[in-house]
């Protein structure tokens, strides 16, 4: 379905992942092939243990494949070292987790500023950019509040603001609505859709719920450590 001349943003070819060694070894991924186009909104579905998170961790450069190739923006990155992967995450990737993972006792603003600190932005730039990101997720008035003072939906929106403040190419979200009720979940999905459509961010999201997956343009089904089938919606 990929049109001629359209180079995928990310391409996994024959990616395997093996955990442990010897008797205890476990083959979590058994040869994953996957092309992700720039600007796609992709939902990853599949039964528990089918390798969704493992794949997301590899795509997010938090982990490395045991074998196979991983091409990102035309570069082979399956053999990058720890620090090189960290730099890649810093520059091109944003993360949203199921458990929000905000720093406790730290204001929403400071949480969103955190990635900018590692990019070496000065205090003023950090403040301006973080406020803009919080504004995008509709939480500018809550900038001074700590996570404990925010609802789950608000916390996840702060986490999204933190993920997009560096204007990443790809936003990776592993079950971002797993801890939220359906109303909050829909708010989050609308936010992700908006970021995908209007900010041009490629969104990769793991979900169990077909209702959430329906927001995506592409749905990838995993089974037993392999891609089972891919659904693509007509544009």
């Amino acid at each position, binding site marked *: 379905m990929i049109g001629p001349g359209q180079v995928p943003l990310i391409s996994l070819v024959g990616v395997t992942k093996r955990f442990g060694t010897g008797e205890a070894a476990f083959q979590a991924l058994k040869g994953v092939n996957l092309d992700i186009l720039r600007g796609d909104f992709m939902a990853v579905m599949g039964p528990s243990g089918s390798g969704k998170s493992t794949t997301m*961790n590899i795509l*997010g450069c*938090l*982990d490395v494949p045991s074998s196979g190739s991983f091409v990102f923006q035309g570069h082979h990155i399956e053999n990058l070292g*720890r*620090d090189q992967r*960290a*730099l890649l*995450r*810093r*520059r091109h*990737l944003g*993360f949203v*987790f199921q458990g929000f*993972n*905000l*720093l406790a*006792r730290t204001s929403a603003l400071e949480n969103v500023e*955190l*990635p900018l*600190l*590692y*990019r*070496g*932005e*000065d*205090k003023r730039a950090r403040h301006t950019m973080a406020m803009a990101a919080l504004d995008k997720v509709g939480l500018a008035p809550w900038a001074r509040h700590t996570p404990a003072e925010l609802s789950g939906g608000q916390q996840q929106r702060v986490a999204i603001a*933190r993920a997009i403040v560096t204007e990443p190419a790809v936003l990776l979200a592993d079950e971002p609505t797993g801890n939220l009720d359906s109303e909050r979940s829909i708010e989050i999905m609308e936010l992700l859709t908006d970021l995908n459509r209007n900010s041009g961010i490629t969104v990769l999201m793991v979900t169990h719920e077909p209702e959430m997956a329906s927001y995506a343009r592409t749905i990838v089904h995993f089974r037993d450590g392999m891609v089972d089938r891919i659904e693509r919606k007509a544009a």
Partner: protein
Amino acid sequence: MTGTSASTRLIATSALLAVRAIRRHVLRSFLTVLGIVIGVFAVVTMVTLGKGASRSVHDEVSGLGANVLTVLPGTAPGRGGGGEAPPPFKLEDVDAIRDQIGGVTAVAAQAQVSATAVFNAANWQTTVNGADNAYLDAQNWAVTAGRRFTGDEEKAGKSICLVGSTVAKNLYANQSPLGTTLRLGSISCTVVGALATRGQGGFGQDNDDAVIMPIKAVQRRLTGNREIRAIIVGADPAYDSKDIQQSIAALLRERRNIRSGKLDDFTIFDSKQIADTLASITGTLTAIVSAVAAISLLVGGIGIMNIMLVSVTERTREIGIRLAIGALGHEVMLQFLVEAVVLSCVGGLIGLVLALGASIGLSRLLDLPFVFDPLTNLTAFAFSGLIGVIFGYFPARRAASLNPIEALRHE
């Protein structure tokens, strides 16, 4: 956006975070750094007092000018002896030292008795020294008002006297003592001169709390005998005072009929030796306290390492978040190192403040000059920071090497 400015910002932010963390756990932080507080406090207080003591000894010795040897009957404490009290010196002994020993600038006999000095309604318990002008020469002791004794007055043993500045202050206040009649116990004397202030002696005694009369007058009218309690010898600085001491000892042994093999029944004190002894005592004390402080600092360092390991475990998820959003290993390491250093520096600072208070107080109590030494304080502070680096290194490296995926899963 250069690497250095990013690290600088990271250090600044980490320091801020560290201060926040310390404020959040005030008691825990204080207990953690207690070892460092005690270590820095002990060393800085001791070194400061030591410097004060050596300054005071130095002032004392340089105030005396030439070396002063004091010869007393009896053995020095700790050298055994006992038995019969050794005989006092005779006037002939004084003459013999003056005539037969090279390198002495002045030799003076001293008879001593304590008496109550009374002038008008005021009275003051003091020491009356029977002496002569040579006594003043030997100790480089100047007369600031009035005059010294004349040779005739010394020979005749006239009832005249010189007053030390402490006595003058207590009996005369602002009035000039010259020409007044001072009662000393049952006798009286005419004050002909006032002595310069000499300050503290090596053992804390007040050198200025004294009245000086011609020795003949003291012997005849106060002590009632011809005993000489001490011989004061001024030594020429060009000579080795050890040699002079040996010559005097040999001469006195002969004059006092001490057979070879028997111990001296007199003791020679050297002002320089006293100064050296005091300095070496201070040095020894400083070494002991430094050893205690080193142990204390070690314990403090281990405390910091322990609390930082606890902190790394408590904040595993935070570390996971930082790594996931792109923090490099060495940046996480830097953050925890800065925390450890801030913690230990706070300990060092508390120690310095306590040491400042204690040294001011103790200097006053021990009557020592307070000498603030910036280098000592700076070194101690830098050392406390160094302890943070050394003992914070291992926990910081552990934080930096965490696997982000596992760290994020940590509960």
